């Protein structure tokens, strides 16, 4: 029995490539998601969010007007942001470590590198929703804890109890 109610999930796809938008929407529909909204850049996505929040955003990196990293930082820190805790997954064609580091520092929840595969994308979304990291606020950062938790709990011996 699935833990996520995929049929009730609302997803915002922020992508300027029509083939990718169609594919990601298809992947969402195949999981049962019915509420799929799309935007071709971060600025349009941010105004859509202000109209009606969503449960998760899937965001491309390279877009005109506002890219994925800037969108993420805006959602996390802009005073007008309707949901600073919005789960955001970056779906990027670029796996250059500097870009990934910038995305992490902007407060991204997860990064999926293109070319995507349906199962990989859905697994990352599920992980973002089912294994959330605590949000952290410092003077220069707000977003999910940038350290990756181990998915499997530690099950070795506990020395302090020996």
């Amino acid at each position, binding site marked *: 029995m699935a833990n996520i109610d995929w049929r009730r999930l609302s997803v915002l796809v922020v992508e300027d490539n029509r083939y990718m938008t169609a594919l990601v929407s298809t992947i969402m529909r195949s999981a049962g998601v019915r509420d799929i909204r799309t935007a071709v850049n971060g600025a349009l996505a941010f105004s859509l969010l202000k109209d009606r929040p969503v449960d998760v955003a899937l965001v491309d990196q390279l877009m005109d007007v506002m890219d994925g990293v800037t969108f993420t930082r805006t959602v996390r820190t802009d005073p007008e942001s309707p949901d600073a805790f919005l789960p955001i997954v970056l779906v990027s064609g670029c796996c250059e470590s500097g870009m990934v580091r910038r995305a992490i520092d902007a407060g991204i929840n997860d990064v999926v590198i293109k070319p995507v595969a349906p199962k990989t994308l859905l*697994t990352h979304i599920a992980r973002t929703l*089912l294994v959330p990291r605590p949000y952290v606020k410092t003077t220069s950062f707000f977003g999910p804890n940038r350290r990756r938790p181990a998915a499997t709990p530690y099950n070795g011996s506990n020395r302090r109890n020996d």
Partner: protein
Amino acid sequence: MLSSWDESLSVGVTSIDADHKLLFHLLDDLQGALRDNEDSSVVGSVLNGLVAYTGYHFAREERIMEVCGYPELAQHRGLHEGIRARIATESKAYHANPLEFDSHALAVFIRDWLVGHVLGQDTKIKPYVTANFEAVAAIGGMPLVDLDDIENDAMNEDWQWPI
């Protein structure tokens, strides 16, 4: 030769017809992305979608054939296995060297296969599934992707940032 889904390709089961339409859409997008010279991150993604949904669809189609006692199931499974292996091999070759791979030839092959297989083989199940509510119900609740499996991986796989 047909180039897209039409009523002549209907097998009489809404969800199977929907799967076939989805595969045609993905194929249209693959050919569109190649025509528009999209880079390999886009073409590769669409190709991955086509490979994955072909596999998911085969599982669903074989399930309904099982439930309705389709006599040519074993042979049909063999055809599915052949095409699954071919597409997986081609996809692997594409990802290994996207610039050298003849993606147009692969798209033409998949379209010819899809039309030929649906028209020549899949429509043969029509008499077995028509008014067979048990068979239709068997795949009615079967999602195209296995969400339990996906959530299980999400909870248990240990992964890191891609850097």
